[in-house]
């Protein structure tokens, strides 16, 4: 190496840059949405969140549409017209896959609603109640717990064995009671059916205590919960559990011993003279204990949405009545001669040119803004009647009055007089099929009593021990929740 020619160059440089920005930019404040940290700062925000819980329940995938659709079409009174798996033809055909649209959609929207309730309840505890005061805070929490209870109850009807099968000892649902706002909570095993029902009742009892006796307007008495809402829902829940004495206790808080059967306390819930008025504007009759309101706003969405609304399933998918997803089974309830042609509830049917019949309770044109009934007074009366007959095992006189109150409201010329207890319970179930046709109660009525779901058209029957009697669990849940088990 020739050192003389060695050229040494050392280039050494040190550069330090400081690119500076304002420190506060590192902790940005949101401009177009409300962050969780500030969600409970004012009463306005709390009130608007409370409304959002109802809005989540009202989603077309859940109680604002499809939950009722499934309750209808699992039963024997409907015939599938389109074979469309996205619009519940598999629900009707009793051959649902774990990954079916209906299964995954209902499961996720149900739990989305539950978590929103939980997040709200947690937020009220840590902050909100101190903003609005204890009484109002408890009222808001009561609303959230009522919605959570109704959501759990609805999921139980499809995803778990009925309470009557082993007194609630069968696998129920993952019972989530704290709000989840981040990752890391995916795994949770199922509680038993009984544990979930226990929580539902705890929520409804809290709701009854802390909800107002009445709200300010007829509309709010229909769309926001009050004491009667909680009590009425309890009659449904206890009936599903076969706890007849408790149904009677709850119903007796409201229903007088003798006619007229109008609520004794709180909101003056009552049977309206003409049942058709329940399903018409303004949808706020004394009969509607709880309904979910709709408007035609598309953004934000305020109606059930495409392929979710009751009218589009049962009345029309365009402007022509009778071209839709489900017609009435000609050998189902419409063929029953005990349902007289003069019965006003027959006027809530539509007969197409092809002589097919359709439910015409939900008939508002696209975007289908009919309000969705959650529970109405007639159900409370029939719940009480059934509990009285089944608990006393007699042809109970008050039950007979209640049954005839519902029947004669629409068919004044008929007086039902079942001779035996068996005839009476049959008559009660028949009355529910007629009265609540299209309102989603039929399938839960069959399963709570462990009755076979009858065949209809090409859809097979399902006995209470067959798989398919209840739904499979969402494949997404099974994939992402390692402690979840399938039905």
């Amino acid at each position, binding site marked *: 190496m020739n050192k003389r020619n060695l050229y040494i160059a050392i280039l050494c440089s040190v550069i330090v840059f400081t690119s500076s920005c304002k420190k506060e930019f590192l902790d940005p404040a949101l401009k177009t949405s409300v962050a969780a940290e500030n969600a409970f700062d004012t009463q306005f925000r709390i009130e608007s*969140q409370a409304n*959002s819980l109802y809005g989540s329940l009202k989603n077309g995938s859940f109680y604002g549409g499809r939950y009722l659709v499934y309750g209808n079409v699992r039963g024997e009174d409907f015939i599938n017209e389109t074979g469309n798996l996205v619009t519940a033809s598999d629900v009707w055909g009793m051959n649902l896959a774990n990954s079916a649209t209906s299964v995954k959609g209902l499961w996720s929207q149900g739990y989305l609603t539950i978590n929103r309730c939980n997040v709200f309840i947690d937020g009220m505890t840590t902050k909100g109640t101190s903003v609005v005061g204890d009484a109002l805070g408890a009222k808001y929490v009561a609303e959230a717990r009522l919605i959570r209870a109704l959501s759990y109850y609805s999921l139980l009807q499809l995803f778990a064995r009925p309470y009557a099968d082993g007194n609630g000892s069968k696998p129920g649902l993952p019972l989530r009671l704290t709000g989840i706002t981040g990752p890391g909570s995916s795994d949770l095993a199922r509680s038993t059916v009984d544990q979930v029902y226990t929580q539902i009742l705890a929520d409804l009892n809290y709701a009854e205590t802390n909800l107002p006796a009445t709200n300010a307007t007829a509309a709010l008495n229909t769309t926001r919960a009050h004491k009667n809402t909680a009590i009425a829902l309890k009659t449904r829940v206890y009936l599903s559990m076969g706890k007849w004495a408790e149904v009677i206790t709850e119903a007796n808080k409201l229903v007088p011993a003798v006619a007229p059967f109008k609520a004794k306390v709180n909101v003056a819930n009552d049977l309206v003279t003409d049942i058709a008025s329940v399903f018409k504007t303004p949808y706020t009759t004394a009969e509607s204990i709880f309904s979910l309101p709709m408007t035609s706003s598309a953004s934000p969405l305020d109606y059930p949405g495409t392929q979710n609304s009751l009218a589009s399933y049962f009345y029309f998918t365009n402007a022509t009545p009778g071209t839709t997803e489900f017609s009435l089974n000609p050998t189902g309830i419409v063929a029953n001669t005990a349902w007289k042609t003069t019965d006003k509830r027959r006027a809530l049917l539509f007969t197409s040119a092809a002589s097919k019949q359709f439910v015409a309770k939900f008939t508002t044109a696209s975007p289908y803004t009919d309000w969705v009934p959650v529970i109405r007074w007639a159900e409370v009366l029939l719940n009480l009647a059934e509990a009285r007959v089944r608990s006393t095992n007699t042809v109970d006189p008050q039950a007979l009055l209640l049954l005839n109150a519902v029947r004669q409201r629409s068919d004044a010329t008929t007086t039902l007089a079942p001779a035996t207890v068996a005839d009476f319970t049959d008559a009660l179930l028949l009355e529910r099929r007629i009265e609540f046709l299209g309102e989603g109660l039929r399938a839960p009525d069959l399963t709570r009593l462990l009755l076979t779901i009858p065949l209809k058209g090409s859809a097979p029957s399902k006995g209470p021990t067959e798989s398919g009697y209840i739904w499979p669990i969402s494949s997404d849940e099974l994939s992402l929740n390692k402690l979840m088990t399938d039905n």
Partner: protein
Amino acid sequence: MSYFGRLNYNYAGKYFLSGNLRQDEYSALGIKKGTFWGASAGWEITKENFWATSGLDKVFSSFKIKGSYGKVGNISGIGDYATFSTYGSALYGGIASSIYSASGNKELTWETSKKTDIGLNFGILKGRIEFEIDYYKNNIDGLILNVSQSPSTGVPSSVATNIGSMYNKGFEFNVNATPLKSTDFSWNSNFNIAYNKNEVTALAPGLTEIITPTGSTATGENVNRSIPGYSIGYLYVVKTGGVDPATGRRIFYNAAGRAVTYQHIVPTGQSQWTYLDNGATAPAITQGADAVMYHNTAPKFYGGFDNTFRYKNFDLNVMLTYQLGFWVSYGTNAGLHDQRYWNNAVDVLARWQKPGDITQFPRAVYTDNVSYGNTIPLDINIFKGNFVKLRNLSIGYTIPQTAFGKTSINRLRVYVAGQNLAIMTKYPGPDPEVSSNGSSSSGQGSDRNSGPNARTYTMGLSLGF
């Protein structure tokens, strides 16, 4: 907010050293601060005396060895407010409401890569052929992905999460050559091939897998699954065993490897899922319980071959690209065979029709969306994605400058070009290169109702003054 420092050292044009150090803070992260650094070294061997004395300079026109190591941070693809749980606007019967609509992650922090690079460059034949060989290893920690939570959590969105670690390692080989060069004609060519191995090495505590959905939660499918020991976005499907000749039902294999058949319409008293061997009722096949890690979606080899020819004023460019050693879930295929009332592929006409028929198409049952993989991802819809594409073809002519006389125009070229003109592949779908999940790294190789990359034709003039 960033601080940045750099140090360079160069000794006699032979040895190069450099180092850098920086610290950054980023507003969209929960834990905002990250410190990164790097170091590199190079050796220009041709400047050494022994090179000339040994005569190696006659063979090699250039020769350089280089290496680097560093740690860098990555935050691409993170929403501005990924750390926030937020409320959006909604209505309840006309009344404005504020609804919990997105979940955030307060723990979100930098994704980091520790990159090792060792490379060799050399040229021969007076630089007419230049080679570049590189080995790299890139260890990624705190990998950020949007992670789906189980639906029962009721979390309204997937959550950006530092989910774990993975690495990419491999070789890159690149040749630049000028095989022909004369006054009128030249040919420049570049060929490159890369071998890459990707493996997820760990997931964050509490996570056992990352499922990346294709499509919406309610109607989509989950064919991509990432777990340690496999490359990211691995295809996760249920295996099948053809069609039972006796009944025409699809045969599925459950987790234990036992054959189970499926019938879509269930006569009263029968079951939907039945063991093939004894006809007993079987539990429903589900992806969660019965799927297997089936094939990788990340290509093992990829690269391109780019050629430019010039003859007088004409030029021609032909570029081929290729990817090899990967698989694609052709979800569209499931839809095309689904037995609902819509357009189907005609090959289902060869379906099972009577006992004894040997066919790959199960008995046709109206509304059956299970037997062909529309509800549970199945191996029958997984295909090799290997392809060679004519990525670019262009022909141009440069009008001689003499044509413009004294105008200020000094260059005018007219050209015709086409992209994606041809593809050679055995993949049955339109294009194995597309993903229904866009650029999501954990959702590649899922082709469900996606169109191919567009074939485009361009004609143009380029004008220089």
